[in-house]
C-alpha cells in the first residue's frame, strides 16, 4: 500500500488563508475575490497578499468603499453560478451592508425553496487588543450567530484557518468566515505564538460545525473562541501548576454550535467557564450557558461562569481596553473560585 507522507510547514494565520485561497482558486476558476484593498495591497490584514499578481484583476478585485455595492454584487454572481469570496474589511462595518447579508444572502436560499444557491464566503476581520477603539475592535460573533441562514465560523489556529476556509469555499451555503487580527501573525501587530503553526501543504477541509478540544482535563471545562481560546490555554497551563486540570474547547464554529462536544466535556468535568471577546449580554456566553443549563444541568456541580466584554463600547485607552477584554488572569481567578464550590 502506498503511504502518503504528510508535509507540513509552519505558517501564520494570514499565510494559511492565502494558501487556502490560492489552492482553491487554482482548482476552480469560478472562485474570485472582491473587497476593499484586497488587490495589490493584499488585504489590510494580509488575507490576499500576492494573489493579485498570480490571478490578476479579474479574479482579485479591488472595490470602491461600498460594502452594499460589492457584497450585493456577490449575491448576483453567486446566484448565477460563480463562487465569490468577499471581504468585509472590519466586521464593525457590517451595519452598512446588513440588508444584503441578512435579508438577501441568508434568506434567498430558503425563500427560493433551495432553488437558488448562494455559495458566498464573507471574510471579515474581528477583534481588538491593539487600541483601535470602539468602531474597529469588536468581534460581533453573536450578531451573526443570531439569525438563521448563515454558517458562522471563527477558527483560531493556522491549520484550522486553512481547512475551514477551504471548507467554507466549497460549501454551497453562505459562510461568514471571521479571522482574528491578532491571529494573522502580521508584523505590525503583537506577534504571538498562537499565530504560527504547522499547516498541511496540500488542500484539505475541516468541518464547519465541530468544536475542538485543544487541551484535555478533568476539573473544569473552559470554552473559548479565537483569542479567548489562546487565553484559556494560557490559563490552563498556569492552573496545571497549581494542580487544577482544565479542559479547553476551541469553539471554532459559532453557528451551527457543536453542543455535543461541550455537553460531553461538562459531563466529565462538572464545571464550566465560557469566555468571549464579544459583549456579555445575549452573546456566546449566554448561549452556551443556556445549552448546558437546559441539556446538561444534571452534570453541573457549580454555577456556570461567564466572562465577556461588559456591555460598553470597547475603549481606545490601552489600559481600559485591557481591562474590558477577558484575559488569562480573569480565567484563572474564576476557575480557582469555581473548583472550590
Amino acid at each position: 500500500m502506498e503511504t502518503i507522507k504528510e508535509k507540513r510547514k509552519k505558517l501564520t494565520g494570514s499565510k494559511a488563508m492565502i494558501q487556502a485561497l490560492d489552492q482553491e482558486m487554482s482548482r476552480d476558476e469560478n472562485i474570485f475575490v472582491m473587497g476593499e484593498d484586497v488587490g495589490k495591497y493584499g488585504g489590510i490584514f494580509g488575507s490576499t497578499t500576492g494573489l493579485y499578481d498570480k490571478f490578476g484583476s479579474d479574479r482579485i478585485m479591488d472595490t470602491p468603499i461600498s460594502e452594499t455595492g460589492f457584497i450585493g454584487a456577490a449575491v448576483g454572481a453567486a446566484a448565477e453560478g460563480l463562487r465569490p469570496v468577499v471581504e468585509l474589511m472590519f466586521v464593525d462595518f457590517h451595519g452598512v451592508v446588513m440588508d444584503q447579508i441578512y435579508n438577501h444572502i441568508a434568506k434567498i436560499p430558503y425563500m427560493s425553496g433551495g432553488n437558488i444557491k448562494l455559495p458566498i464566503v464573507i471574510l471579515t476581520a474581528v477583534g481588538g487588543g491593539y487600541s483601535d477603539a470602539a468602531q474597529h475592535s469588536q468581534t460581533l460573533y453573536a450578531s451573526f450567530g443570531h439569525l438563521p441562514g448563515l454558517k458562522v465560523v471563527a477558527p483560531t489556529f493556522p491549520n484550522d484557518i486553512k481547512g475551514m476556509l477551504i471548507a467554507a469555499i466549497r460549501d454551497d451555503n453562505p459562510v461568514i468566515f471571521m479571522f482574528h487580527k491578532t491571529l494573522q501573525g502580521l508584523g505590525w501587530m503583537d506577534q504571538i505564538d498562537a499565530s504560527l503553526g504547522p499547516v498541511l501543504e496540500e488542500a484539505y477541509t475541516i468541518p464547519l460545525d465541530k468544536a475542538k478540544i485543544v487541551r484535555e482535563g478533568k476539573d473544569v471545562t473552559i470554552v473559548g473562541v479565537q483569542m479567548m481560546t489562546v487565553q484559556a490555554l494560557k490559563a490552563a497551563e498556569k492552573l496545571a501548576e497549581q494542580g487544577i486540570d482544565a479542559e479547553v474547547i476551541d469553539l471554532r464554529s459559532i453557528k451551527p454550535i457543536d453542543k455535543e462536544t461541550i455537553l460531553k466535556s461538562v459531563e466529565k468535568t462538572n464545571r464550566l467557564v465560557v469566555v468571549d471577546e464579544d459583549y456579555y449580554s445575549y452573546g456566546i456566553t449566554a448561549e452556551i450557558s443556556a445549552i448546558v443549563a437546559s441539556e446538561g444541568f444534571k452534570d453541573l456541580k457549580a454555577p456556570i461562569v461567564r466572562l465577556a466584554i461588559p456591555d460598553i463600547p470597547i475603549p481606545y485607552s490601552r489600559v481600559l481596553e485591557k481591562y474590558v477584554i477577558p484575559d488569562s488572569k480573569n480565567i484563572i481567578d474564576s476557575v480557582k473560585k469555581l473548583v472550590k464550590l
Partner: protein
Amino acid sequence: MSQLKEIILPKELEESIVVLWYKELGEFFEEEETLVEVQTEKVTFEVPAPFSGVLSEIKVKRGETATGGEIIATAQIAKTTV
C-alpha cells in the same frame, strides 16, 4: 566540505520586523527562494536566499527587528551543481 556563510538583511531596508521564516533550522533552500518575510513601516519584503544551502542559525527570530545590513542568519553553503 561545506562552509558557513552569513545571511544579511538587504541594505536598502529600514528597520524591519521579522514576520515569518519560511525555512526552519536544518532545512535546505535554493538560491533565490524566499527565506524570510520582513515588514518595515511601509512595506512587506520577501528576502531571497543569496545562495543555496542549509539554515544553521537564525539570529533574528520572528517578532524581532533588524536593520539593513545586519546579519539575520547563518547557513551552510551547499555544493554548487552546475
